[in-house]
């Protein structure tokens, strides 16, 4: 089988919002990645001590996988056509059929089984999104938003990556936009989306969600002095891996959201949103410093960081995010 559907590859900061952007553009709705991310209300902070991944608690800087897809679908009034499969063979046949019909298709995969990822980047994260835009014999043609170039993946590896079992198992999940309404009226959805995110971040009733979640994690870090230093290193290292590596995370998501606020400021003629964008940027920079402190703690730097410093930095971030999102919520 040889089919190559028209597709212009663009790198993105985050896999799911990047794939959704590309799919919508292909369907005739130009939208930026930050807009897709912000409108779908995908920014958050969560720290779940009891949900362990690779032996470490889950820390996430965005909503769970698939929230961009379903979120943007609801807002546009154009739900994505989605499917999961019990039988891997069937899942691959469906993908082929969509390609043959001229579609480009978003699929969920496990990073570990994608051969074009460098070995050091391959971990068992099962909610990585990419675009399949064609097939050339045994190879699928892949637009992976993480990379600047397009990639190729043999059928056997792609099947394995799509049908891996376990946490966030993709079950062959594939998706593409349904018919788009003539008038999407994106602009009027900006304010409610900002309001929802601000409420989640500033007023969550749950202690491990939003700014409260950040303060909660800061307190847990403060208690690390009582633990074995090697354990403390692995615990802290994992927070940054979740931030920087799995989907470019933490600071990356803060900058993505800041970009969304800036674009919204122009669309709505609201200068105060541009100012909010600058404040979000400053918060993102604090997250980067937090990451730097942890790296210095792990690597016994010439100027080593202490657990107290790290916890203090995160407490500061928690206060900043609390104040920022409370104010943003009042605007919205």
């Amino acid at each position, binding site marked *: 089988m040889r089919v190559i559907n028209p597709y212009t590859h663009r790198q993105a900061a985050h896999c799911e919002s990047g794939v959704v952007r590309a799919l919508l553009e292909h369907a005739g709705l130009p939208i930026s990645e930050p807009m897709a991310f912000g409108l779908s209300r995908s920014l958050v902070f969560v720290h779940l001590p009891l949900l362990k991944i690779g032996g470490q608690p889950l820390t996430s800087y965005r909503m769970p996988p698939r929230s961009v897809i379903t979120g943007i679908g609801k807002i546009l009034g154009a739900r994505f056509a989605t499917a999961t499969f019990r039988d891997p063979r069937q899942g691959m046949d469906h993908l082929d059929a969509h390609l043959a019909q001229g579609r480009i298709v978003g699929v969920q995969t496990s990073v570990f089984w994608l051969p074009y990822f*460098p070995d050091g980047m391959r971990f068992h994260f099962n909610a990585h999104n990419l675009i399949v835009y064609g097939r050339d014999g045994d190879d699928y043609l892949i637009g992976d938003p993480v990379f600047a170039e397009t990639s190729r993946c043999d059928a056997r590896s792609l099947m394995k990556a799509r049908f891996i079992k376990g946490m966030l198992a993709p079950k062959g999940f594939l998706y593409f936009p349904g018919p788009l309404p003539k008038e999407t009226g994106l602009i009027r959805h900006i304010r409610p989306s900002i309001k929802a995110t601000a409420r989640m971040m500033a007023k969550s009733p749950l202690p491990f969600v939003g700014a409260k979640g950040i303060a909660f994690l800061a307190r847990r870090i403060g208690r690390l002095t009582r633990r074995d230093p090697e354990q403390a290193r692995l615990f802290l*290292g994992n927070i940054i891996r979740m931030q*920087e590596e799995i989907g470019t995370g933490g600071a990356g998501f803060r900058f993505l959201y800041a970009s969304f606020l800036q674009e919204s400021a122009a669309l709505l003629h609201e200068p105060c949103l541009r100012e909010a964008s600058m404040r979000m940027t400053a918060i993102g920079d604090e997250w980067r410093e937090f990451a730097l402190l942890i790296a210095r703690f792990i690597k016994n730097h010439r100027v080593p960081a202490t657990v107290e410093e790290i916890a203090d930095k995160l407490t500061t971030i928690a206060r900043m995010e609390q104040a920022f999102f409370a104010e943003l919520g009042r605007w919205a």
Partner: protein
Amino acid sequence: MDSRDVPQDQIPVFAGHSKAVYALDSHGDYTLVPTSGWEVEEIVTRQALDELARQRRQALADHRAGRLSPLPYHMYDKKMDVATLARESGFWQWRVRRHFRPAVFNKLSLTTLAVYAEVFGISLTELQRIDDARD
């Protein structure tokens, strides 16, 4: 983050690839900027990889000494832990741990072994015998 501050540390983990991040250009407008990686990401990723390598070497030594079946070696070699292996194989964690015992592993049925081989993406022979050259 200013686009001039976007890290370009050419980290080995990226193996020559680049990622992209949103950063501010000289007019204060957000734009997507390529990054060849940040030292911080290298440090924390290397930490995770080193930890897996340490566990893998330990599992291999224990296997060669007859204390463990080859299973934990393959598990760490594929960057898994018991929880991940249990989820992907569909076996309970206590069963996976039991299969770490050489005596138990050696008596496993072909069906059970095939499940592990499938999860790791290796052949039955590779699963049962670790090449002398591996470390």
